[in-house]
């Protein structure tokens, strides 16, 4: 077959080197939260203008797939998705790392990513034109139901604590509505502030919601960040065995990832969430998901790397980019004079097939590259003293959220949301439902309003929502996901009642703390204020157009109802003697408070004073806060030198490699 012939074109030394360099670069960039595949690909596009088209594409594709994979590192080691695609990797990856299985989680993630990437690339190689039809079969209605399906995962993530999960989701959905509405063009909930016009940036919100609480907890105690592993290393053999045993999960997740990747605008984060919830539902140990089950990592990582190949299908066949990096690569192809579209696979077959083979090779190269980088990353995260680790992670979060739009507003929002998330988390409102709402909100809203408009034009609104075959399929899947955890929970409770066992369940590292049996006064107070927020959202919708106000009103009502539900639930419970969330200002509490203050000062002073000076000063301050051991002056001198090197190095990377305009301020 001709296709095989193009494999030799892809195997030239130049192409292999480009694939290797691309994967290394992509993995590193993806591992740094905030630095995305989009950014890396955008910076490198001009260099490909002078290259042979296929070679340029291979380099860009390798960076892209490497970055999606690299996101897993930060997710597993510091509980922060390096890219939005690895949101669901944190659910099980970080608990694994915490209990000493971080190396294992990394090697499992590597095998899953390679497998998923290969499935996506093979689909692109063999089935691209027919699969592109999937993209067209998905209309606004299907996107709406897909987003609802994603939201049903909340039921699984918050078993035993459903009302708080639902409230969190409503808050996330509300955050997704801030800014200028795509549909209707209304300016919503910006409080008249310029910074909210563009909406809440997803990536900086994720960094804040997941990572800031981790840093706050990091400085509070002297315990190591991750429990040191008993065996050490990445435990590659064990990881491979686990991946092989979960081959069914691996294949299913890869297929889900490929199909969702084909849908323009859905992307890796939704693919990861959907396959995670499928893996959880079909697992025999579904109760261990969220507590460090490797299958959760496998599902997410296989799916998100499969979206790379999947996303190229509509990009190359229809000229409709699946994801932002696809869009940049599409632009690069056009500059090369290659006509995208249905005829591409015949007229420019050499370029396309050489590129696809190159992408496949790059995916396979992720295995050695990833295991090597992973080994080093894991060892350094475990070994680096907290005093250096905490400020480094803090600096990375600030740089990362700044880098997205070269805008300090995003970094300020990141820290603010992070501190709020930490407080809410203390009272049982987890960050994940909020993130889910934020990710899925705009897709759900646009799908809903578009379906409504189209249905209204022909007077068939109910048929539009409930009468389309693919929609019915998604609705059934959503219903199953929604009811399944409740059913499992009920069954488990019944069994427990029968056994009348008194052994308390070990819920260390549980993704959601089980609800207390006594009245939760703090939770009730929060719920009351959320009910008020619901009212405010409702009244804020009054000046909007009809299109722009449907969704906010619905969310406002849901938020108020769920909040009142939580209050009612608690009123039925006996008043407890000891609130479990007593806020005592011990040394840990003081350290947290100080750190929060330093981070706030950091992001607000940075634009005034300048990046380097502020960051170095804040870095030192965080070091002092994080220090529990009081080491000798020589150690401090070494640490301070490290701090200077890290700040200067990252500044150089931002200003000269990624070409960002760094805030200069008064000093520098």
């Amino acid at each position, binding site marked *: 077959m001709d296709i095989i012939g193009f494999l030799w074109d892809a195997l030239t030394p130049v192409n292999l080197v480009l694939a290797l360099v691309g994967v290394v670069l992509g993995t590193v960039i993806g591992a740094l939260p905030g630095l995305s595949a*989009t950014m890396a690909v*955008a*910076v490198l*596009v*001009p260099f490909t*203008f002078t290259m042979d088209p296929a070679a340029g594409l291979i380099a860009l594709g390798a960076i892209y797939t490497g970055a999606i994979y690299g996101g897993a590192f930060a997710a597993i080691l510091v509980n922060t998705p390096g890219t939005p695609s690895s949101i669901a990797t944190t659910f099980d990856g970080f608990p694994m790392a915490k209990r000493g299985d971080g190396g294992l989680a990394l090697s499992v993630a590597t095998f899953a990513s390679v497998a998923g990437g290969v499935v996506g690339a093979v689909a692109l190689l063999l089935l691209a034109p027919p699969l592109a039809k999937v*993209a*067209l*079969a*998905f*209309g*606004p209605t299907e996107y709406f139901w897909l987003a609802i399906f994603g939201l049903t995962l909340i039921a699984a993530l918050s078993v035993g604590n459903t009302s708080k999960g639902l409230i969190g989701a409503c808050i996330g959905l509300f955050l997704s509505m801030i*800014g*200028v509405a*795509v*549909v*209707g*063009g209304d*300016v919503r909930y910006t409080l008249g502030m*310029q910074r909210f*016009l*563009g*909406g809440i*940036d997803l990536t900086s919100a994720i960094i804040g919601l997941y990572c800031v609480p981790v840093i706050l907890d990091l400085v509070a105690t002297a315990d190591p960040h991750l429990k040191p592993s008993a065996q050490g290393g990445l435990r590659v053999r064990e990881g491979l065995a686990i991946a092989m045993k979960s081959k069914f999960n691996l294949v299913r997740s890869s297929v889900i990832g490929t199909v969702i990747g084909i849908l*323009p*605008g859905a992307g890796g984060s939704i693919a990861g969430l959907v396959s995670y919830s499928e893996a959880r539902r079909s697992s025999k140990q579904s109760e261990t998901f969220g507590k460090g089950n490797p299958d959760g990592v496998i599902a997410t990582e296989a799916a998100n790397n499969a979206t790379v190949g999947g996303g190229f299908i*509509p990009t190359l066949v*229809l*000229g*409709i*980019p699946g994801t*932002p*990096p*696809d*869009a*940049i690569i*599409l*632009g690069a192809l*056009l*500059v090369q*004079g290659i*006509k995208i*579209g*249905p*005829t591409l696979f015949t007229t420019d077959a050499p370029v396309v097939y050489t590129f696809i083979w190159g992408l496949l090779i790059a995916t396979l190269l992720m295995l050695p590259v990833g295991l090597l980088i992973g080994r080093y990353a894991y060892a350094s995260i475990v070994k680096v003293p907290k005093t250096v680790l905490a400020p480094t992670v803090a600096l990375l979060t600030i740089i990362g959220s700044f880098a997205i*739009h*070269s*805008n300090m507003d995003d970094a300020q929002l990141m820290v603010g949301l992070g501190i709020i998330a930490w407080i809410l988390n203390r009272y049982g409102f987890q960050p994940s439902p909020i993130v889910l709402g934020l990710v899925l909100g*705009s897709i759900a809203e*646009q799908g809903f309003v*578009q379906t409504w*408009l*189209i249905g*209204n*034009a*022909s007077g068939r609104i109910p048929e539009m929502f409930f009468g389309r075959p693919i929609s019915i399929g998604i609705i059934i899947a959503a219903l199953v996901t929604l009811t399944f955890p409740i059913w499992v929970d009920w069954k488990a409770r019944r069994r427990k009642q029968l056994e009348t066992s008194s052994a308390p369940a070990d819920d260390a590292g549980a993704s959601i703390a089980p609800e207390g049996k006594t009245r939760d006064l703090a939770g009730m107070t929060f719920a009351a204020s959320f009910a008020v927020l619901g009212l405010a959202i409702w009244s804020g919708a009054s000046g909007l157009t009809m*299109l722009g106000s449907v969704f906010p009103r619905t969310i406002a009502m849901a938020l108020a109802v769920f909040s009142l539900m939580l209050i009612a639930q608690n009123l039925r419970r006996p008043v407890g003697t000891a609130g479990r969330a007593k806020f005592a200002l011990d040394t840990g509490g003081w350290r947290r408070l100080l750190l929060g203050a330093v981070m706030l000062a950091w992001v607000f002073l940075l634009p005034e004073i300048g990046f380097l000076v502020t960051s170095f000063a804040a870095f030192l301050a965080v070091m002092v806060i994080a220090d529990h051991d009081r080491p000798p002056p020589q150690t401090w001198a070494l640490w301070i030198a490290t701090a200077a090197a890290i700040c200067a190095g990252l500044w150089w990377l931002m200003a000269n490699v990624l*070409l*960002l*305009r760094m805030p200069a301020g008064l000093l520098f």
Partner: protein
Amino acid sequence: MKTTLATIFAGLLAATPLAAQSAADFPTQPMTYIIPFNAGGESDISARFQQAEWESVTGQQVVIQYQAGAGGAQAWSQLNSLPGDGYTVMGINLPHTILQPMAGSVGYKTEDLTPVHYFHYTPDAIFVRKESQFTALDQLIEYAKANPGLVTFAGSGSNSSNNLAAIRFNELAGVTTTYVPFSGTGPSITAVLGGSTMAGFNYATSGVSQGDALRMLAVAADERLAAFPDVPTFKELGYELVGGAYRGVAVPASTPEDLRQRISDIVSEINAQPGFVDKMESGGFVLTDVGYDQMDAFVAKRVEEYTAGAKALGIIQ
């Protein structure tokens, strides 16, 4: 060691006169070109076409950065806070920069922005998919007259050029249709191709990448496009509909007059490069050459035109 020091010193010497340079030498270092949208849209693609010619015209490279948000308003509201040394330029679009400040407080006013050159526009056009029953515009109009509201147009965004064109079309043809906004050209074309909506009001550029999967019924340009010689203009068919999204290059307000003119000249010169013209025209873009000297009159005319449109959209009374 000595040579290294000498090189650094020479480098410093070469760098110092930057501030005092004349517009004739401009540019002497790489430039930054901020696109206020995400990658892959028409703004990005046309800028990438320019980027490929930039070095041969100016002797310096240009770096493209994206600063998407609020339909471009995020970046435009910050344009004037950027350094006015000419090395940072930003893409600017019409009708966005006229309609957005009319619709609400978006952090900038139309007259705050300093466009130096509008180099092309993408005309609006009506598309249907291959399987559609409509092969000519009058069939669609007839159908719309018989079934008010039933014809759905997918388009990119609310209060956008597509949205304006759909409303103008309703007025001119005396029909009622439903405009369904999508979050960009890609999703709205997907909706047309997949049959979610009956037709689409998109930019003519979309017709190129879709080949015969899409049928263009009419285009809102003055003359037929080189890429689509068989597609009639609305004018030919008797509807006075010409327009689309204009794209240009803007500079911070602090940029001196001579540099504004120089950047306008650079864009003009790129516009004349045969390779660039060929890529743009075969891509369905229509080149314009509105330089800095004609800018005030051009923008004033558009403001007048879009104010009427904004009334029709219900943005202003």
